[in-house]
């Protein structure tokens, strides 16, 4: 038992509190954020307005990646046509110049949309670290009700302020049904 302290910090994934109403989850999440916790997650059977703000979730990466993808697509669509029309297969269409900007707009536009859409889709999957066949949160007792009628708040051990006993006490103050220590 001499390694008890060291083992406890390494064998805990998170402290998870279970609530029976979204309001309790919201107030717990808000005060957790105010208390300085950053690595936390909330689970609810339906979307709750303002919950992502309450847990301090900021989604800034996907839009920028999507924008960059769109720019790449525009560049790709334009250069592809430029290459085809000028170098690969120059063709006189109705006496118009080989590089006619108006005729290049549709393909440039479509390539922009395609690249932006695919970037948004795949970057979302990658940033969420999906697919994820195993996730520690499912070790939480009673977690199957997260898709039915219960609301969960997990404060993860990876957080800089994490101290299992303090977090438990903190979560107990917000009228949870139970607070459990979850294995990784």
């Amino acid at each position, binding site marked *: 038992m001499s390694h008890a302290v060291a083992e406890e910090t390494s064998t805990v994934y998170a402290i998870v509190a279970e609530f029976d109403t979204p309001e309790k989850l919201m107030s717990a999440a808000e005060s957790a954020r105010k208390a300085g916790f950053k690595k936390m997650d909330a689970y609810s059977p339906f979307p709750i*307005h*303002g919950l992502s703000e309450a847990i301090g979730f900021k989604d800034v990466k996907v839009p920028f990646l999507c*924008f960059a993808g769109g720019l790449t697509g525009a560049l790709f669509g334009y250069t592809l046509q430029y290459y085809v029309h000028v170098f690969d297969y120059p063709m006189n269409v*109705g006496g*118009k110049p080989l590089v006619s900007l*108006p*005729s290049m707009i*549709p393909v440039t536009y479509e390539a922009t949309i395609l690249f932006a859409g695919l970037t948004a889709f795949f970057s979302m999957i990658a940033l969420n670290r999906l697919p994820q066949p195993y996730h520690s949160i499912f070790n939480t007792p009673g977690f199957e009700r997260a898709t039915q009628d219960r609301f969960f708040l997990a404060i993860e051990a990876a957080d800089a302020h994490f101290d299992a006993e303090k977090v438990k006490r903190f979560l107990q103050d917000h009228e949870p049904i139970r607070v459990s220590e979850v294995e990784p």
Partner: protein
Amino acid sequence: MEETQQKTLNLGKLAPGAGVLGLVGTLACWGMMFSGNDKMWGSFMFGWYFWMSITIGMFGITILHHAVRGQWSLAILRLLEAGSGWKTFVIMGVLLSPVILQPIHLYEWADRAFTMADPVLRRKEWFLNQPGWTIRVIAVLVLFAALSAFFRHSTVRQDKNLNFKLEAGRSSWAGVSLVFFFLASTLFVTDLVMSMEPHWSSTMYGPWQIIAGGGAALAFCLLLQCTEAGKKPFSDILRPQLTRDQGNMMFALTMFWGYTTISQFLIIWNGNIPETTAYFAKRSSAMYPQGMEGNHWGILGLLLIIGRFFIPFFLLIAPRSKTKVMNLAKITGWILVMHFFDMYMLVIPAVHGRAEMGPLSGQIFFDILACFSVGCLWLATFAHQTKQAPLFPVYDTRLQEAKAHAH
């Protein structure tokens, strides 16, 4: 925002002043028109159509709101209803009456001898003839006024009895109305504006004008809502998520404007037929007053590509420009100014003799006078109609609840 001592927005007080100004200005315009100033007819048509396009746009968004009952349009529903109420259609009809009575000043097809002598116009005569045109224009105005009155009557009644059945009924009617609205508006703008250049035609015209007007209409309402965000009823409902949704809709309409505009251009550019390219030739860098090469329509076209599409497009992509009301107000104000130039470039070169005068001629002061006068009367009608019902629908409390839950 502090919840104490909030003022209530009162638009109704605008009505008398704007009404008097508009009446004086309109009578001055009419005086010039009937005393042989032929260019004034074109100026008046421009001023009138600038406001009519916003009215059509507002009416379209109102019907769209009833069809899908979105939250983003709920916040501005009463502004939309006031801007496209039956009285607006009546006032706009009355303002148009000189043109309806004497279309000859704006439409060369109204001269029957000219039409029959022109091989192209002779084949369009079954459509472009004065009796048919007059009936169609008046019929669309009357039907729009009636449909608008029907929806408004229903929302005002629901405000009093809170009967959800009315809302469900509007939703059913709105689907059909939306189809009717697009067909009738297409006919309306084809008759009134497109036929100013009777040799030219475009199948994109109706959707293009509805989208342009819809964008300007949304910009107008959001500008009003965002500049008056501190006053009731907007202070009770505005929250970042809502303005973000509204900004996204503004973004969508900006994109749609770019899409319809470029589509029309592309098809004409690709076809390269003299009759269809005439539209763009008249609005190109080749059109300037003699000896004034710097004063050409191409400048205005470039301004629209950059100012009506690219600037709002890139500004509205960023979330922070939509979640802060003052940012959204600035962008929508900019879009409205660009809509002015868009309509200017659409109507003015179609007026006989104006294309050759370039975009900057002395007549521009009369264009602005006409736009201002019609605008004052339009605003007076708008302000008057905002007074006739609560500025926010009583029956739908989704937005207040969302605001209460937000914090």
